[in-house]
């Protein structure tokens, strides 16, 4: 676990209304057009369409995608995000298999892998979210998901909602 201060995308699922504005903004940054199918943040429904939550790359400390890439096409950019170098990527999809979170994507049109690169330090999804369900925050650790999971598990086990 990294102990340095960094910026991460923090998800507040209880605030998400499922409007998918983040997907629109993301696809615009990723492709220059509005095409949510190419968004690297995805909103999923829960509990019979009554709850939604966005989900994207947590920029995990392990960096499984980087480890798996046989051609070194995944680097860490200035914002601290794992980023795919299009010119180097050969489209072998190993990273999509290696990623345990399902946040590496493959674009059949370009035959390249693609993922969240934190928009180079100004994530469009956080900017676009009307309810602040996605925020871009400074945090002491890159692995906020672990804490989130621990805290939620503790709450669920304690019987609270």
């Amino acid at each position, binding site marked *: 676990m990294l102990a340095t201060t960094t910026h991460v995308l923090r998800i507040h699922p209880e605030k998400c209304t*499922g*409007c998918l504005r983040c997907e629109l903004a993301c696809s615009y940054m990723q492709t220059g057009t*509005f095409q949510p199918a190419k968004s690297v943040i995805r909103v999923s429904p829960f509990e019979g369409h*009554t709850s939604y939550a966005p989900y994207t790359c947590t920029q995990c400390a392990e960096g499984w995608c980087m480890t798996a890439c046989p051609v070194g096409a995944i680097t860490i950019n200035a914002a601290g995000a794992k980023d795919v170098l*299009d010119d180097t990527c050969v489209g072998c999809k190993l990273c999509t298999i290696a990623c345990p979170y399902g946040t590496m994507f493959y674009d059949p049109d370009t035959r390249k892998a693609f993922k969240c690169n934190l928009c180079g330090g100004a994530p469009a999804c956080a900017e676009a979210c009307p*309810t602040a369900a996605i925020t871009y925050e400074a945090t002491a650790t890159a692995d906020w998901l672990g804490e989130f999971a621990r805290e939620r598990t503790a709450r669920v086990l304690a019987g609270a909602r």
Partner: protein
Amino acid sequence: MTTAIVQAQSRTTTPSPARELPGGYAGKLLRVDLTKKKCWAEPWSADEMRELLGGVGLGAMILYRETATKGGRGNVSWDHPDNRLILATGPMAGLPAWGSSGLTVVTIGAGTNGPTSTQANGFFGTNLKYSGYDAIVIQGQSRDWVYLYINDDAVELRDAKFLVGKDTWATQDALGPQLGLSGHMLSVYSIGPAGENLVRFAAIQGDYGHVASKNGCGAVMGKKKLKAVAIVRGTKSLRAADPRGLVQAADDIGFDLRTDPSAKSLYEYGTLPGVVNLSRLGALPIKNYTTNVPPVDMSQWEAPKLREGFDHRGHQCSACGMHHCHMSVIRKGEHKGTIVDEPEYEGWSGAGWAIGAMSDIDGVAWLNTELDRACLDVNEFGWICGWVMECQEKGYLTEAQVGFRLTWGDIKGAARLIQMISHRQGFGNVLAEGVKRAAEKLGSPAKDCAIYTEKGAAPRGHDHRARWDEMLDTCTSGTGTLESGVPVHPAEIGQPTRINTFDGEAVAKFIAGIRGRRNFEDSLGMCIFTTRTRLENLCRVLNAATGWDVTVPDTVRFGRRTAAILRAASLRCGLTPDLERPSTRYGSTPVDGPAKGQAVGEQWEKMVDTWYREVGYDRKTGKPLPATLKALGLDWLAKDLWGKRASRR
């Protein structure tokens, strides 16, 4: 640092659209012939897009062109195979402006047997646009029940036997798993039992709680034996002429909605504050217009209270930041744990106040969703159910006639009535014909208690005896519901910001003066609540998307052109000016409350005369005058309506 945009462009391999295709458009209409079981894509030109925009603008033109009979003098009826069911979206759908997934249904409706324009939202517009279509135009009639499946270029009419009899929510529940899709990956608009059984006020419901409800559009879908339209979120891209400008204009509209006094409460609570606010004006319809004095403590109906009363979950439409649409989970009572759509104001009114259910808030919320599930228009149901309750109370209808005793505020009884109507069982078969036809069948004195327009439309969920602008609009409209109201920033188009609401002449001038704006809004593919900003902003967002130079006067002109086309189609359907009046009860004088003694009936004729003069239509025949049409650039329509006389008048 890698900039995302550069990467993005290197990945853009979607073939660039034809050079002339304006941004925001998919460029194709999806045509479906149910008789021949054929589906095909039809391109439409950039000129047509500029002229018709989308939504009701596009729908009205298709309806006018394609539903005529007798050499253009008559019109096919709602149940004819040649009737068109147009499910249109608009240029803003799929783009980041708030609430931009608008669906406009245009058809010859079963209520008035005349044109309809009725809106819903959810994710219909985005899913359709990303699939590559701006609208679906459905014609013909299927022999067996089918549903339309759209997944990019794969468009199929599929067997819907397994869906028949299912309510609208159950239909979506069944289609999702079958197609292996969840959430907004699949948008489903469908009809429930009421649509299948051709109830004349059946609606089309979609995406759990969004309803295109007016004028029996659900019956048209039922007649065509089309159970549902299921659209997978497509994979195609939408371009904007000026994407940064678009995002900026969309954000400015969002700011306006959050902060402007005319939109702020909508932003925070949707239409919930309507109950208390309208009760203060005497415009909350209580017990079928028999009183305007709420007999209960109104503090329980304050918006924050209503929202606190349920376990609330946001259920916003595409790209929307409003705190408007919600799912609620009922916390207590008989329906504890049931997931319902948070009722709109219209739901609290139609499934609550109009039928005398004024305290059982959980019950009303449940009943409202039962109506959505059956696919009945909540407004007309309110007038029907309230009318039956009043008639039973007064002895105009017997228990034997109805089949059971129905008293004010009886939620269970109302739910029973929903089933009777939507399956056309017993007396439900009479009521399924809509409030006007049912009232006429029974005759006076029951008829005199019923709320409807002589055209056969039912008003929205207000007491229009305290909102004359909406009564006049409902009666003269070419859509079977409001066509010009509600006013938003009227000063922007040269109208007064405030008028005496009980001065018939001022009301008529005002409603004629704001005419056009609404039809423009309903052509954009946005929601009527997220267009509650200045027209200037709507022009900005539209121009940034398309690359056009639409101005505020253009928007009004556009809307009035659409209204004139709808009016011409209405006349062709036989909806003549003599039908433009309220029923006895609808046009009566309130006996108590804030609008007590304000007699709309006394000023009615003068109001209609003034309205005709102001909009430039002929009072006798109802036709838009040749000069009016020519000023709108509709010379061809002047020729259609007036023949050779067009040039002489």
